[in-house]
């Protein structure tokens, strides 16, 4: 399953770091962050609840880039 989320981040490299962090989160099969459109597209693994996974994704993203936001 794929879902798109709006994000808020200031620099392009930070967006890349968020993508890395999201990819490494358990339950996420793949993630793409587009800095230009400020969107994060997350592909979840089978049987994962997007809501709980996204909480983790947000937590991991905050760790790599303090000044970011994902609108869940």
């Amino acid at each position, binding site marked *: 399953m794929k879902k798109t989320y709006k994000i808020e981040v200031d620099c392009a490299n930070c967006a890349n*770091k968020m993508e890395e962090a999201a990819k490494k989160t358990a339950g996420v099969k793949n993630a793409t962050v*587009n800095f*230009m*459109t*400020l969107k994060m597209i997350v592909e979840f693994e089978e049987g994962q609840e997007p809501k709980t996974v996204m909480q983790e994704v947000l937590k991991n993203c905050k*760790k790599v880039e*303090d000044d970011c936001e994902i609108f869940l």
Partner: protein
Amino acid sequence: MNKKQKKVLIRIIAAAFFVVVFSMLPVDGYLKFGLFMIPYFVISYDILKKAIKGIRNRQVFDENFLMAVATVGAILLGDYKEGVAVMLFYQIGELFQSYAVGKSRKNISELMDIRPDYANIEREGHLEKVDPDEVEIGSMIVVQPGEKIPIDGVVTEGRTTLNTSALTGESLPRDAEPGDEVISGCINMTGVIRIKTTKEFGESAVSKILDLVENSSSKKSKSENFISKFARYYTPAVCCSALALAVLPPLARLFLGASPQWGDWVYRALTFLVISCPCALVISIPLSFFAGIGGASHAGILVKGSNYLETLARTKYVVFDKTGTLTRGIFEVSGIHHNTMEQEKILEFAALTESFSSHPISRSLKQAYGKDLDSSRVSDVEELAGKGVTAKVDGISVAVGNTRLMEYLNLSCKECHQAGTVVHVAIDGAYAGHILISDAVKANSEEAIRQLKKSGIKKTVMLTGDADRAAQQVAADLGVDMVYSELLPADKVTKVEELLNSKSDKEKLAFVGDGINDAPVLSRADIGIAMGALGSDAAIEAADIVLMDDDPLKIVKAIRIARKCLRIVYENIYFAIGIKVICLILGALGIANMWVAIFADVGVMVIAVLNAIRTLFVKKL
């Protein structure tokens, strides 16, 4: 500028003011240090905070950390002015970048501002504005001059001119009258029209296009992936080299008995850190692609991802479907031969005779005649299956049909040497000539093929299900290199696969089709381009690039946009990495000072961003 940016701007101005004033004061020692701390903290408190947070979260090597270490180091070495200046210029660079990105975001969303806000529904004689989402299929909506058509439908009342430029990039207005299908997103220019909707808002052209554009970001190009990977290794690598540069040479000198010159080498290491920031690359590459996709969509070319732009730029082979792509897919009278009376007269008789038929051929005859037909002039109509029609027009017997009809009537007829469907006409018992009906080639097809060749396409190929003779003639007219005719839809896939196997991996193959029956080929080719595909869902789904109208010149334009975009991407990669490497070497040798380092960081970024924005301008391509 938004609030955040304004705040940074004020801080920059304040810090710059303090630095200039304090540099002119004749102070020294601790007082000077204390004074310079004021602008330093004004300009860098957020960076320092982020750097500390980064260390706490074990994310050490980011640009905040680099800048913090570089400036604190410079200040400890006593270079107060340079320390503040580095931070100042870094902030100016960041501000510029965020402004430029915000601006191009806005530009592009304005280009794609086709979303209608409301639909007018008539209730009890009043027009009521409702959310287009709430309008059901088959509802009647009213569109006034100046408004956008919110939902796809058929005009039932009123005549007007439509501006389709937001959808197709085509500036020529289109006329619409009762019975015409209209697509959402067009702007109604002259008259009030009533439309019966044929789709829901979510299924209408506008929604589909917006959906496609907004999701175009999910596929990243190789260049983008390369840059994010590069940035990941580059920053730590430069940090380590900076540390080595600060420590190893002095130790070596110490070992050799010379004075270690710690200050000098630490300064060199700090310039290293300032140069190392990867911002220029990391921002300019996605910005170039984004602007390229935005510019293309403004020209009526929808690109589904930046990777497709990359592939399109490498395209060397273009394979066309014939009908509907190079030809109009509409059958028209293309000639009247061996006529014994005026062409107009023959056409009139033929059209009148066929006036009761709904066969595509009779439609083309009527269209070619162009005037209203008075069916009361026609009597005794007889349709002969597989042969044609006989009737009496103004009391004169007329026969319109194929060769078999002429044989049936014992008339000798003349064969046509050109490709197409031949309609023989006999008037008053004598052969009067034949009318040739064929699929007309699009006005721009020949020009498109020529321009493709000119821009370095190695081979153009045409695939068609048509008879070989017709296909060969069209190919010769247009200057297409190769033709494969009499193909079934499945054969087209096989042919494309053959072509794919015969070329080298670096040269890409594009397939262009009108989306009818060729969805499998569209997805099989390296890059599938669907034309005039607003009506066909399967084509939008299967294609990588969608041309909103059916002008073949758009293919050339798409390729040019892609090439320009890629050229700028490579320019930026070589330029940014090149300047940085040169500055790193100069810095290590002690030739480049902090000011050069600032240029290598901020200057390069500003130039790269400005260069990236050039991709947005595609009008003249």
